[in-house]
């Protein structure tokens, strides 16, 4: 039927650091279709949920039919298709970022915004995730706000950005 539907336009995401994390996982698993669950785990960890275009990307990369991927996602309660939080804030806790204060950032988020990794704000505006090394070590400490990498973040600045996001809707 239709081809080139925007849903399956996997190229879209090459610049998204979260996609890079999934790409790394795919490579590590040798693009084996058997690795679907593991790859989905990685994707859910960095996005907080599994957006359709990400599923499309994974389906293509593992040469699995879309419906097969969707079936697996909906079979396990662990996976979620719906966004937990309108906005996501992914704090890198890889070695370089950790050394440069990732934990301090997380503490600050907890004290100022009241959310810990894996949690979502009550109004569903923001979800906090953590990931190990997003491949931007030169910019440590790094945080990904929605799909934008924030490098060399300072505490006050990042908290303000998060609050702006939450307010902007």
């Amino acid at each position, binding site marked *: *039927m239709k*081809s080139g539907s925007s849903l399956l336009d996997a190229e879209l995401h090459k610049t998204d650091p979260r996609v890079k994390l999934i790409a790394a996982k795919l490579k590590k698993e040798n693009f084996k279709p058997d690795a679907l669950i593991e790859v989905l785990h990685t994707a859910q960890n960095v996005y907080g949920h599994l957006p359709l275009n990400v*599923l499309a990307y994974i389906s293509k990369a593992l040469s699995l039919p879309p*419906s*097969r991927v969707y079936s697996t996602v*909906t*079979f396990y309660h662990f996976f979620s298709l719906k966004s937990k939080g309108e906005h996501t804030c992914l704090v890198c806790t890889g070695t370089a970022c950790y050394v440069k204060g990732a934990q301090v950032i997380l503490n600050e988020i907890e004290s100022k915004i009241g959310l810990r990794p894996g949690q979502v704000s009550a109004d569903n505006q923001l979800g906090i995730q953590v990931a190990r090394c997003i491949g931007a070590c030169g910019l440590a400490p790094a945080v990904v706000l929605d799909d934008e990498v924030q490098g060399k973040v300072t505490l006050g600045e990042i908290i303000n950005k998060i609050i702006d996001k939450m307010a902007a809707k």
Partner: protein
Amino acid sequence: MNKLTIYIDDKQFQAEPGKSILEVCREHDIEILTMCHLKGVNDVGACRLCLVEIEGMSKLLSACTTKITANMVIHTKTERIKKYQRITTELFFAERNHVCAVCVANGTCELQDLGYKVGMDHIRYPFLFPKCEVDTSHPWYVMDQNRCIMCTRCVRVCNEVEGAHNWDVKNRGYQVRIISDFDTPWGESITCTSCGKCLQACPTGALWPKAIVQGQMKKNPEIIDELMERRKMIL
């Protein structure tokens, strides 16, 4: 190959090892009710209609997925089996919205036939009346979840015979549904070739061509096996 001796309904038969109980019964015109079985694709044992009793086993086993073994003593017509067939059939009807009078498949539906066969005159279970979608986005075909019994014949035909794998199953329990691609409209499928095999395979009025009026639907599920046989000859 040495044949195995088995007993079905107190008669002795010789059959080749590797065959399923269902295959042997069909060869000898012993009736077994089936719904998810479709000759030409793999069996999955999903519908539990083909249950048979085997002496020495307390559990009923599905004839379609159970291979014969030497000296197996099989019963296909016991009261216990009939009871389960009734229950299974009633549950099919109670799980979705089957309004035969307005269904395209009225008169040619395998589910309707089954109801008659097991002598279903009423349904003892509460109807779930789930909210079901009708997908009319495909230019030629319709998928009506109201009539679907989750036999997955369409899924297997599309995957194993056509090689397209448009269909699969989402969710679990009573929320299971047949889905196209990412649970996206069939008309937007990037995998479906519009070959129409799933329509032929579907036992009910869940899948049908738009160019058909109510009660006029003719299905030919046997074509799937014929196709597989012809392919073997080509190879």
